[in-house]
């Protein structure tokens, strides 16, 4: 799974440009020994019906998003710099001084030397509208040869294993979820399941909306990455969740009030399987569940997330152990959700 994740993270897939990620996932699904029926909808969502050992009257869907945050080129300056806008929620604090990849070129986002800054400039996070991408071009014309308006860029960041079994890379949100869904597709599950690899999550949960309509599930489990604030100097009550403490289960976030029975079942399943899980202890953020639970006449949803430090930055950090434990939990949830009592 780590190798799959590494490959997934090497692919660029800013929202709306998920096709390379899609191709990789389609190839992996095709290579699986499981019986899988695959389709791609008009927006680019990959929908994979995986035949299980047993039938159930419930349609159980798992969703992870293929897209990642990044940058979109809006124009070039006469000096040969590229203008850009962020795609998705990137904090401008993690942008200054970073390197980006754009059409196989390298660019740098920075500004005048700190020595030339006034005091307030030295102490302030630079605004997006003041930042440009330096692609070592001498003129507008040369810059536009490297990237044209509408082209996209991602942070340049090497997939690295840190001590303590942590993984550092860009796009872990949500290639980690994609890797977990590919794990579910790598063997025949206990019951039939539908895996959806969605597009455009970072620009408003848009792929999940059409995917959920197409799949029309009874139960959906969103497998995403979520903010872990267990970082330097943050008080424990502000951690939200902790890297290395197991999969994160949501009861509520800014977009969704999660199904209570599914939420409770996850904790029961985890305890039985010996998987340590943690509740997400803040009502913050949102994921594809926000779109899925409002599909058609409504869908019961749960979220199982990977705790991720420095999310939406070039150096996101997750734990290998959390990834493995989440895989184990998801396997068991297939059986338990197939057996869970219907509410309507």
């Amino acid at each position: 799974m780590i190798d799959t994740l590494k490959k997934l993270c090497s692919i660029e897939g800013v929202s709306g440009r998920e096709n390379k990620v899609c191709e990789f996932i389609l190839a992996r699904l095709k290579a699986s020994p499981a019986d899988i029926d695959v389709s791609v909808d008009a927006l680019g969502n990959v929908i994979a019906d995986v035949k299980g050992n047993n039938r159930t009257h419930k349609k159980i869907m798992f969703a992870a998003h293929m897209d990642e945050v990044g940058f979109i080129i809006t124009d070039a300056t006469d000096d040969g710099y590229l203008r850009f806008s962020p795609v998705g929620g990137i904090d401008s604090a993690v942008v200054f001084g970073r390197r980006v990849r754009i059409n196989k070129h390298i660019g740098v986002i920075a500004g005048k030397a700190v020595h030339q800054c006034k005091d307030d400039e030295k102490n302030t996070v630079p605004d997006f509208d003041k930042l440009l991408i330096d692609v070592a071009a001498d003129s507008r014309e040369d810059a536009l040869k490297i990237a044209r308006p509408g082209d996209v860029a991602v942070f340049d960041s090497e997939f690295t294993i840190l001590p303590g079994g942590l993984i550092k890379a860009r796009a872990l949100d949500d290639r980690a979820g994609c890797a977990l869904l590919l794990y579910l597709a790598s063997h025949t599950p206990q019951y039939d399941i539908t895996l959806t690899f969605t597009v455009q999550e970072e620009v408003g949960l848009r792929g999940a909306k059409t995917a959920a309509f197409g799949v029309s599930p009874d139960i959906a489990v969103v497998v995403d990455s979520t903010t872990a604030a267990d970082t330097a100097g943050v008080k424990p009550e502000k951690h939200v969740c902790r890297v290395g403490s197991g999969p994160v289960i949501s009861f509520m976030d800014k977009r969704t009030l999660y199904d209570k029975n599914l939420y409770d079942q996850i904790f029961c399943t985890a305890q039985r399987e010996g998987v340590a899980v943690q509740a997400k202890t803040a009502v913050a953020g949102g994921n594809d569940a926000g779109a899925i639970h409002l599909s058609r006449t409504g869908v019961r949803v749960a979220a199982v997330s990977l705790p991720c430090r420095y999310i939406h930055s070039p150096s996101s950090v997750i734990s290998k152990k959390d990834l493995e434990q989440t895989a184990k939990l998801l396997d068991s949830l297939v059986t338990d959700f197939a057996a869970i009592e219907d509410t309507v």
Partner: protein
Amino acid sequence: MQLIKSLELLSNAAGAGGLTDAADTAQAILSKYCDTVERDALGSVIGRIDCGKKDAKLLLLEAHIDEIGLIVTRIDDNGFVYAENCGGVDRRALAAAEVLIHGDKPYVGVFCSSPPHLKKEKDKDKLPDISDMGIDVGMSAKQARECIRPGDCITFRPNFKKLSNTHVCGKSMDDRAGVASIIYCLEFLRKIELCCNIAVVFAVQEELGCRGSAVSAYRVAPDFAIAVDVSFAYTPDADKSKCGVLGKGPMIGYSPTLDFDMTKKLRSLADDNNIPYQNEVMGGTTGTDAESISDARTGTKTALLSIPLRYMHTPNEIVDIRDIENAGHLMALFAQEGVSRL
């Protein structure tokens, strides 16, 4: 091509604070060109080439080998590493930046960035002090304390990359670009008959206050010296009048602290040989090793060349290879023709 290879080796080597990797790398390259190479008490590299002529003058070519970085001050109970400046790191570029912590071996670390949801609206745009920014090394406090100790130095993670045919990008181009230009100069001088003795100093501790060059200059006691450092290249957010331009040639420095005859000589050699250059005029001191060399012992006539550089003191400093070559070429001309005429 060889210049780019040397620059890659130099840029990727660690040289903040007391780290000696960069000096070792520079010494290995320098020893191919010099009769003798030694290290002084502070760790600077000193090479010498004897021209074999009686009463020959001694020309010092100097660049600093250290780089900006940080130094570990403590490890908290959750294993996060805290550090202080070791040179003027640009704080704006630290959140989510990757570093190498040089403990019992180099460890990759990531500067913590606080999640936006935890920032108060009024502090949202305020950068924290470096002493409050932890580094995530993925280890528990116990593990971290076993292999990382207060006093260990931190550099940005090596990241040298060619951006175009002439532009390269990486950490510590300040001042490995200067080191590379001196090596490029020695490559020229190797092919001609020298008329002066040459000393080369790759000085430590420039970023901490131009300390290494002061004691190295005392030891070498040259007749003339050229310091090569980097200076600000224009970016659209900067004041054009206070910047050079990348690719338009080395910047010849003018300052009350620099020897005006040497400076003019460099300028006329550049004019006569069609070497592109730019003028960098400073009303006071230059803030470079040129000052500490010029006031060593009873004083040394010193000039300053600067390689234009974008994004100084960030992990992604950009320089133009042509500027390094032209600086090297100009120094070689000075050694060949300039020294004898001053």
